[in-house]
C-alpha cells in the first residue's frame, strides 16, 4: 500500500463521483460542482503520477499542469456561474 | 493540332456565363435580357457550326482538368457530342424566342431565363462530357437547373409535380453516382472510349459488370423515362410550355437517352455489352416502354399529358436502336435523337400556343382550332404526321432505319413493334387532327373567334421547327444532315 496507489484510486473515485453528478444532478449549481469534482479527480491522477518514493523529488511538470488546470477550471466555473445567475434572473422575471 | 483548343469550353461558357448575368438583371430590363439571350444563343450557334466543321475535318478536341488524383474533368468534342450540341444550340435559339414571347408579362423572368440558360449549359456539358464523372456533374446540374423551371408557376400543383420530379431525378442521380463510383473502382477510369473500357472486367467478373450495367441504365433510365421510371414525366407537365418543350426535346429525357448511348457504346462497348448479354433485356425494356407510352397516350384528354406519354414512347426508340446492337439500327437511334427533338418541340410549342391564344388545353376542346390558328396547327399536323412515320418526314427516316437494323440484327419482331407503335401513334394523333381541321368550333367554346391573337414570337418558332422536320426528312441524305452525321458517328462507335 503506497500513497500513489491509495490516492490514485481515490482520484479515480472522485472523478467517477463527479461524472455521476455531472450526468445525474439536475440542479444547475450542483452540476457545476460535480464538474469541479471531476477536475480534482484528474488533478489527483497527475499529482500521483508525479510522485516518486522519497527521498526522490517528484516530477515538477505534472504539478505545473495541475496548477494550470486549476486556474482553467476556476475560469470555466466563473463563466458557468455567470450564466446561471443571468438565466435565473431572467426566469425570475418571467414568473413575476 | 487546332487553332482554338478551347472551343468546346467557349461553347459551354456561352450559356453558363449568360446565366448569372440573367439572374442579376432587374426584372424590368426585358429588352436587355432578350438581347443577351438571343445574342448568346446566336454566338453559340455560330461556335457550334465552327466546331462541327472542325470535327468533320478530323480535329480532336480534348480538355482535361484533374479534380482528384487520376480523376479528370474532361470535355471532348466527338461527333456524337456535336450531334447533341447542334440540336441544343438550334433549339435553344428557337425556344428562347418562344419563351420571350410566352413570358412577356409573367413574373420572375430573371430567374426563369437564368435557369433556362443554366439548363442549356448543362445539356451542352452532358453532350461534351469526356467521361462518366464529368457526365455526372452536368447530369446533376441539369436536375438542379430544371427544377425551378418545372415549378416556375409556384403554386401547389407545380410544387407537387416538382417534388416528384426531384425525387425521381435526384434518386436517379444518386444511383448514377453509385454507378460512376463502381465503374471507377472496377475499371480505374470513367473515360468514354469507343469500344468501351470494361472488356477486362467483363472477362474477369461478369457478375459485377452486369450489376454495373443495371445500375447505370437504371439511373439513366429515370431521365430517359424508361418504364417503370417514367411516372415523373407526365406529372412534370405543369411546367410552362417552353419548359416542357425543352425538357422533352433536348434537355432532360434526351440527356438520359444520350447517357444510355454513351454507356452502351463507350463504357461497355457494344460488343462487350452484347457478350455480357445485357442488350437484349434492354431492347425488351425499350419495347415495353414504347408500347406502354403509346397505350397510355390514347386515353389522355389533356393535350400536354398526351404529348408527354408520347414522349415516353418515342424516346425509347433511341434506346431500342442502341440496344439492337446493329449499326443500321444505331443510325436510326441517333437520327431519332434529333428528329424526335424537332417533332416534339414543335408539338409542345403548338400546344402552348393553343393554350395561350385560345385557352385550349384539352383534346376535347380542340374542335375547329385549325381554322382559328392555321399556322400553328399546320406545324402541329406536320409534326404529328412525322411522328406517325409518314414518308418523307423525319419520323419515317428514323423508323425505317430502326426496322432495317432490326432485320439486320435478326430481330424481326422489331418490325411488328414499329408497325404497332405507328398504329397507336395514329390512334392518338389523328383524332386531334380530325378535331382541329374537320370539326366546327363550339359556339362559345374556347376556340370561339374574337379572342386575342398570339404574337409572332409565339407563332414563328413552331413553324420553323416544323420546316426543319420536313427538311430533315426530305433531305436526309444531304451533307451535314442529321442522318449523314449519324453515319459518321456509327462508323466510330462500331469501330468500322
Amino acid at each position: 500500500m503506497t500513497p500513489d496507489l491509495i490516492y490514485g484510486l481515490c482520484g479515480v473515485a472522485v472523478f467517477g463521483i463527479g461524472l455521476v453528478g455531472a450526468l445525474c444532478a439536475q440542479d444547475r449549481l450542483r452540476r457545476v460542482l460535480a464538474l469541479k469534482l471531476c477536475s480534482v479527480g484528474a488533478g489527483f491522477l497527475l499529482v500521483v503520477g508525479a510522485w516518486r518514493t522519497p527521498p526522490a523529488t517528484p516530477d515538477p511538470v505534472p504539478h505545473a499542469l495541475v496548477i494550470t488546470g486549476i486556474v482553467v477550471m476556476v475560469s470555466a466555473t466563473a463563466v458557468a456561474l455567470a450564466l446561471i445567475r443571468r438565466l435565473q434572473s431572467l426566469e425570475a422575471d418571467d414568473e413575476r | 493540332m487546332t487553332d482554338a483548343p478551347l472551343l468546346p469550353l467557349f461553347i459551354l461558357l456561352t450559356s453558363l456565363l449568360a446565366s448569372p448575368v440573367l439572374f442579376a438583371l432587374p426584372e424590368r430590363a426585358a429588352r436587355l435580357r432578350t438581347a443577351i439571350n438571343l445574342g448568346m444563343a446566336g454566338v453559340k450557334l455560330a461556335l457550334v457550326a465552327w466546331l462541327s466543321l472542325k470535327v468533320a475535318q478530323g480535329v480532336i478536341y480534348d480538355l482535361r482538368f484533374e479534380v482528384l488524383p487520376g480523376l479528370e474533368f474532361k470535355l471532348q468534342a466527338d461527333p456524337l457530342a456535336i450531334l447533341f450540341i447542334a440540336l441544343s444550340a438550334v433549339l435553344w435559339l428557337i425556344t428562347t424566342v418562344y419563351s420571350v414571347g410566352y413570358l412577356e408579362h409573367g413574373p420572375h423572368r430573371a430567374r426563369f431565363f437564368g435557369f433556362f440558360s443554366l439548363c442549356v449549359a448543362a445539356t451542352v456539358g452532358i453532350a461534351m462530357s469526356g467521361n462518366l464523372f464529368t457526365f455526372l456533374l452536368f447530369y446533376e446540374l441539369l436536375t438542379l437547373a430544371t427544377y425551378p423551371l418545372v415549378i416556375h408557376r409556384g403554386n401547389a400543383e407545380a410544387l407537387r409535380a416538382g417534388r416528384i420530379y426531384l425525387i425521381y431525378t435526384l434518386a436517379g442521380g444518386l444511383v448514377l453516382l453509385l454507378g460512376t463510383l463502381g465503374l471507377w473502382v472496377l475499371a480505374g477510369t470513367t473515360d468514354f472510349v469507343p469500344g468501351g473500357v470494361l472488356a477486362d472486367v467483363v472477362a474477369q467478373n461478369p457478375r459485377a459488370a452486369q450489376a454495373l450495367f443495371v445500375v447505370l441504365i437504371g439511373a439513366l433510365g429515370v431521365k430517359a423515362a424508361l418504364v417503370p421510371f417514367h411516372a415523373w414525366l407526365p406529372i412534370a407537365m405543369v411546367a410552362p410550355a417552353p419548359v416542357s418543350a425543352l425538357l422533352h426535346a433536348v434537355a432532360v429525357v434526351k440527356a438520359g437517352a444520350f447517357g444510355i448511348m454513351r454507356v452502351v457504346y463507350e463504357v461497355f462497348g457494344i460488343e462487350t455489352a452484347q457478350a455480357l448479354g445485357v442488350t437484349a433485356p434492354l431492347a425488351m425494356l425499350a419495347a415495353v416502354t414504347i408500347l406502354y407510352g403509346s397505350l397510355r397516350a390514347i386515353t389522355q384528354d389533356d393535350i400536354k399529358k398526351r404529348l408527354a406519354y408520347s414522349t415516353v414512347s418515342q424516346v425509347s426508340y433511341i434506346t431500342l436502336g442502341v440496344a439492337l446492337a446493329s449499326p443500321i439500327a444505331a443510325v436510326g437511334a441517333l437520327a431519332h435523337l434529333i428528329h424526335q427533338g424537332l417533332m416534339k418541340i414543335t408539338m409542345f410549342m403548338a400546344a402552348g400556343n393553343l393554350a395561350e391564344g385560345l385557352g385550349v388545353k384539352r383534346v376535347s376542346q380542340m374542335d375547329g382550332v385549325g381554322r382559328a390558328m392555321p399556322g400553328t396547327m399546320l406545324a402541329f399536323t406536320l409534326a404529328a404526321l412525322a411522328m406517325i412515320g409518314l414518308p418523307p418526314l423525319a419520323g419515317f427516316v428514323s423508323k425505317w432505319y430502326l426496322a432495317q437494323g432490326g432485320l439486320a440484327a435478326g430481330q424481326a419482331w422489331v418490325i411488328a413493334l414499329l408497325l404497332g407503335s405507328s398504329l397507336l401513334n395514329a390512334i392518338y394523333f389523328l383524332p386531334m387532327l380530325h378535331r382541329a381541321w374537320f370539326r366546327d368550333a363550339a359556339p362559345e367554346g374556347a376556340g370561339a373567334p374574337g379572342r386575342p391573337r398570339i404574337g409572332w414570337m409565339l407563332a414563328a418558332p413552331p413553324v420553323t421547327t416544323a420546316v426543319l422536320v420536313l427538311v430533315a426528312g426530305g433531305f436526309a441524305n444531304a451533307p451535314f444532315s442529321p442522318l449523314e452525321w449519324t453515319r459518321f458517328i456509327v462508323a466510330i462507335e462500331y469501330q468500322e
Partner: protein
Amino acid sequence: MTDPLVIFDVALALAIVALAVAALSVRDLFAMIVLFVVFGLLSALAWVRLSAPDVALAEAAIGAGVTGALLLKTLHHLRYVSGTLGQQAAYGVTPLTPVPIGVTLANAIFCGLITLGLAVAYLGAPAAGPGFDALVAEAMPRSGVDHPVTGVLLNFRAYDTLMEVVVLLAAVVAVWQIERGVSDAPAPVLGEVWQGFARLALPATVVVGTYLLWVGAEAPGGAFQGGAVLAAVGLLLLLTRAYVPQPTHRGIARGAFVLGTGVFALVALLVASGGRVAFEYPLEHAKTLILLIEGMVTISIAVTLAALFHGREPVAQTKGGRDDT
C-alpha cells in the same frame, strides 16, 4: 514504520471520497458548498502528502477558496431572485423536472462501470513510471529560476501558462458579456464583527500574497497562488463595501485584466531575436523577465479573480435594468 502513514493515507482518501459523495448528495445547497470547500482543503492536504505543495497551495486558494466564494455568491444571488433568501435551507434553485429513478440508476451504473474500468487501467499503469524528472533536472540551470515548478510554468511550458492566462481573460470577457445591466441582487454584506476582522486581515493578506509571488522563484508559491491570495483582498474589499466598482473604473479594470497576458505575450515575442525563438529568454535576463511576467500576471490574476467574483461589468446605475440586447 510506514503503518501510521498508510492509515493516515487511507483515512484521508476515504474522507475525500466521502466528502465528494456528501457534497453531491446533501440537499441543502449551502451545506453542499461548505462540504465542497472542506473537500478541496482535504484534497490540498493529500497533495501536500504527495510532495506537491505548489499544487496544494493553488487548490486551497483557487480550487477551494475562490471557487467556494464564487459558488456562495451565486447561491446568494439565486436565493435572492427566487425569494428564498430569508429561509433557513435552500434545496436547489433550478425548477426540477422529475427524472425516472431508472434513468438515474442506469447513469450511475454506467459511470460506475467507467470508473471501474479507469481504476483497472490505473492499476495496470507503471507505478512511478517514466517522467520528465531527468529532463527538468538537466534543464533547470538554464531556466533562470531555482524552483522546478516555476521553471516549468514560466519557462519550459510558458506557452501553456500564457494560454492559461488567456483562458482567464476569456472568462472575464465572457462574464462581462453574460451578466449585463444592473444587478438586481444586493451584494452579500458581512456582519460587523467580520468587517472589523476583514479590515485587520487586509494588510496581512497583501503581504502574504506578495511573499508567495516572490518566493515562487525558489520555493513553493508563485503567480497563481500569490494572485489568488491578492484576489482574496479584492473579495474582502468588495464584501466590506470598502470598494464599490464604478463605471469609470472600467478602463482601468480592462487594463488590469489584459496586463498579464499582454506583457507575457510581448516578452515572449520580443525575446525572439539573435537566433532565439519565441519564449526563449536570454539566460542572463531570464530571472528578471520571469519576475516581470510573474508580477504582471499576478496583478491580472488578482484583479480578474476579483472581477469574476463581482460578476457583471459595472455600468451606470439607472433604474429598471437596461438590457440592450
